């Protein structure tokens, strides 16, 4: 392979510098991995030539597991150990999971996130998702016969912080270096926009297996600016299957009594739904323990029994337009994403609302993974000439609980990320020395109606009269859409800080333990892997520093220059050691030692961006 690698214009000239970066669409019903090869994004097939991996994991007695097609085929025979639609469980407690009683496997309430009871033990949705991600990672590594540099993983735009964090944890558990989490509709827009060289305002209607997103984007010269996003992270094709299944049962006067019945019924409903996208009338035959279900149904009947679901998506569409302060006429086109947009009723309803034929010229199953691959290629630095820029937003407001169970909003929804916003709070009792902070996400005014993300305490406030302390709470949302909260009493300088993780995500120790349990087996492997990773990081750092020095070395005084040169030489020397720890330490030292230089470079970059454009100089 490497012998034939020829570089494309605008790509890294040295094949050894080309990094393999992939985009992964981790979907409710199926998942895909894509990469940019020879300048074109394409989905990677498995050994059998299939690009779609069903998002299904079956656990076997004795620790084995089946993933994808094989697991899917055993879903009806072994429903209790075959986990499908695990995305619906990510970052969710038992009380949050809709239709938990309708799932053919047993859910357990666990702190933060549900678990599934299987023959191989209790599994967290994060572990199940990691199995799917690891399968795609191996597929990519086999394709390129090389290690992956990193991956961009897509999440529904409407995913909250807990769901995003769970996804990132799963990727980490699967041994992936997450370059970025990006939103599915935004990824679709990249694939779409770059293909069609579109400019203007577009709506992305993304109805997947278990989630619905609607995003409004403005496309200008390679900048993908999300103006507003909305949706429902628990509404998708699965719900259409369920509504149809209910209708069929009622029509036939039967009931689904066992987990096998449930699994067969859902599979039958899904098959009928898919057939109805092609045919006007179909027959469904499903064997249940209470009798045989055998009936014919037509498209009108299907559309009637699922009308409430379609209406829910359209109400989200209207809301997002109001958020964007746009009218339907200002939207240039609407792009359809997700397998569920194959339903004629969806295309018709969306088309009528926007007054234009929806755009469907890219495969709705693949478009998200393709867009993620394009972004991954750019983030890996393989396309230095590329001027693709994503300016995404947070989907749901973030706030703090105040007196009386009310929410004080700190970051409003649809704020462009990364962002940092602060608000001042005070004590309400004389001599109060601690303040409990409860971080929530959602649009409702009552804490009880929002999602609880984390609780933490700021302690050691010096005793003062009520209302005298000034506690500044700062919310920082990074480019992955993940939240970090810090609090600081302004007079005394007492600080507290939290990455919003503990209540829903996994701790680093838990991740390490899971890694030991399921993936890396021998201690030796772990050490070898740590060493490889430390060297890769070191190389990356040296390369980045060298190119920064080549470009902007003139900003440094001779003394500053020699300090950086020294740190770089130290890292190059440390790299040859057979131990990860000193390499990591030298990498950190170089990172710290170049921080001031990075700041100077940024100042120069910003100045250059403004140069020549200032008609009215300040």
């Amino acid at each position, binding site marked *: 392979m490497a012998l034939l690698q020829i570089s494309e214009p605008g790509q890294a000239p040295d094949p050894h510098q080309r990094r393999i970066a992939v985009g992964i669409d981790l979907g409710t019903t199926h998942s895909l991995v894509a990469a940019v090869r020879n300048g074109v994004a394409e989905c990677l097939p498995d050994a059998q030539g299939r690009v779609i991996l069903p998002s299904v994991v079956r656990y076997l007695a004795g620790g084995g597991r089946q993933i994808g097609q094989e697991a899917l085929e055993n879903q009806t025979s072994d429903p209790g150990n075959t986990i499908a639609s695990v995305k619906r469980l990510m970052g969710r407690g038992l009380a949050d999971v809709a239709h938990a009683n309708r799932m053919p496997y047993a859910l357990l309430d666990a702190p933060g996130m549900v678990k599934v009871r299987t023959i191989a033990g209790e599994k967290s949705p994060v572990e199940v998702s990691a199995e799917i991600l690891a399968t795609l990672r191996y597929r990519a590594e086999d394709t390129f016969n090389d290690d992956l540099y990193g991956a961009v993983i897509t999440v529904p735009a409407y995913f909250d912080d807990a769901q995003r964090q769970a996804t990132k944890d799963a990727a980490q558990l699967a041994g992936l270096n997450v370059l970025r989490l990006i939103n599915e509709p935004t990824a679709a827009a990249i694939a779409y926009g770059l293909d069609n060289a579109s400019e203007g305002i577009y709506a992305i209607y993304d109805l997947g297996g278990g989630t619905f997103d609607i995003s409004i984007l403005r496309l200008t010269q390679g900048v993908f600016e999300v103006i507003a996003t909305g949706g429902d992270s628990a509404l998708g094709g699965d719900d259409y299957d369920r509504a149809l299944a209910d209708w069929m049962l009622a029509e036939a006067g039967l009931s689904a009594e066992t987990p096998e019945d449930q699994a067969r019924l859902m599979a039958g409903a899904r098959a009928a739904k898919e057939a109805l996208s092609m045919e006007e009338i179909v027959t469904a035959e499903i064997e249940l323990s209470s009798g045989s279900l055998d009936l014919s149904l037509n498209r009108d009947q299907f559309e009637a029994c699922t009308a409430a679901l379609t209406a829910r998506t359209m*109400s989200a569409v209207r809301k997002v337009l*109001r958020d964007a302060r746009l009218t339907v006429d200002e939207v240039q086109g609407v792009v359809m994403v997700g397998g569920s947009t194959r339903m004629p009723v969806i295309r018709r309803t969306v088309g009528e609302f926007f007054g234009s034929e929806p755009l469907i010229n890219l495969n709705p199953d693949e478009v998200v993974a393709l867009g993620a691959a394009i972004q991954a290629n750019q983030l890996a630095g393989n396309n230095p000439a590329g001027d693709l820029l994503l300016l995404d937003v947070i989907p749901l407001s973030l706030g703090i609980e105040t007196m009386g169970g009310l929410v004080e909003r700190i970051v409003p929804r649809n704020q462009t990320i990364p962002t940092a916003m602060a608000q001042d709070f005070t004590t309400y009792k004389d001599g109060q020395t601690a303040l409990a902070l409860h971080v929530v996400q959602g649009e409702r005014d009552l804490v009880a109606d929002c999602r609880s993300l984390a609780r933490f305490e700021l302690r050691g406030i010096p005793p003062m009269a009520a209302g005298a302390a000034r506690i500044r709470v700062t919310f920082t949302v990074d480019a992955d859409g993940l939240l970090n909260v810090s609090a600081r009493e302004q007079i005394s300088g007492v600080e507290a800080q939290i990455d919003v993780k503990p209540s829903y995500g996994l701790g680093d120790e838990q991740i390490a333990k899971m890694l030991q349990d399921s993936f890396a087996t021998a201690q030796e492997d772990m050490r070898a892997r740590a060493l490889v990773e430390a060297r890769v990081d070191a190389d990356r750092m040296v390369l980045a520093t060298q190119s920064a020095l080549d470009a902007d070395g003139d900003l440094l005084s001779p003394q500053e220059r020699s300090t950086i040169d020294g740190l770089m030489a130290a890292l190059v020397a440390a790299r040859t050691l057979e131990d990860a720890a000193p390499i990591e330490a030298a990498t950190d030292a170089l990172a710290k030692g170049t921080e001031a230089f990075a700041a100077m470079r940024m100042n120069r970059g910003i100045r250059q961006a403004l140069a020549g*454009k200032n008609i009215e100089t300040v």
Partner: protein
Amino acid sequence: MSLQSNDFELFGLAQQFAQDRAAIDARWKDLQRQAHPDKFSAQGTAAQRVAMQWSVRINEAYQRLKDPLKRAAYLCELHGTPVNAENNTTMPTAFLMQQMEWREALDDASSAAELDEIDAQVLSARREALQKCAHLLDVAKDYPQAVQQVRALMFIERFAHDIEARLDRMDTADKRQ
């Protein structure tokens, strides 16, 4: 130019209320092209930390500059007369009377058409207040008076939010029928 520069300096714009929204948008994108963390993802942690700081700062400035109300409040603050909305809520009686009339109309409204009508009134009041702001800030340079207008605009803005919330609720109710 530094993280401490004010929003106008950072965006290379004249420090005044009158601005061209398209120019602000274009400048925002130019700056993010330079500073966004995605541009530094392959360049080590130091560069990424700096990029994050700048990108956050640019977004903060953009939020303030693009919104006329926030821009006006910011200009007042830069000229040493902060708005202090929480501590100072005294407003002229006539203005408060009108607010009450609007509130009553909103409570009585039962259709989207009625809401739209109130919305139209609010929009025109907003336009008028913004024009006054522009004059006070850019021509008369009377900042204490401008602060008064900014406060009025804050009332109007809050009311517009309430109308929107009503529309949202109406839409949700429709869908349940």
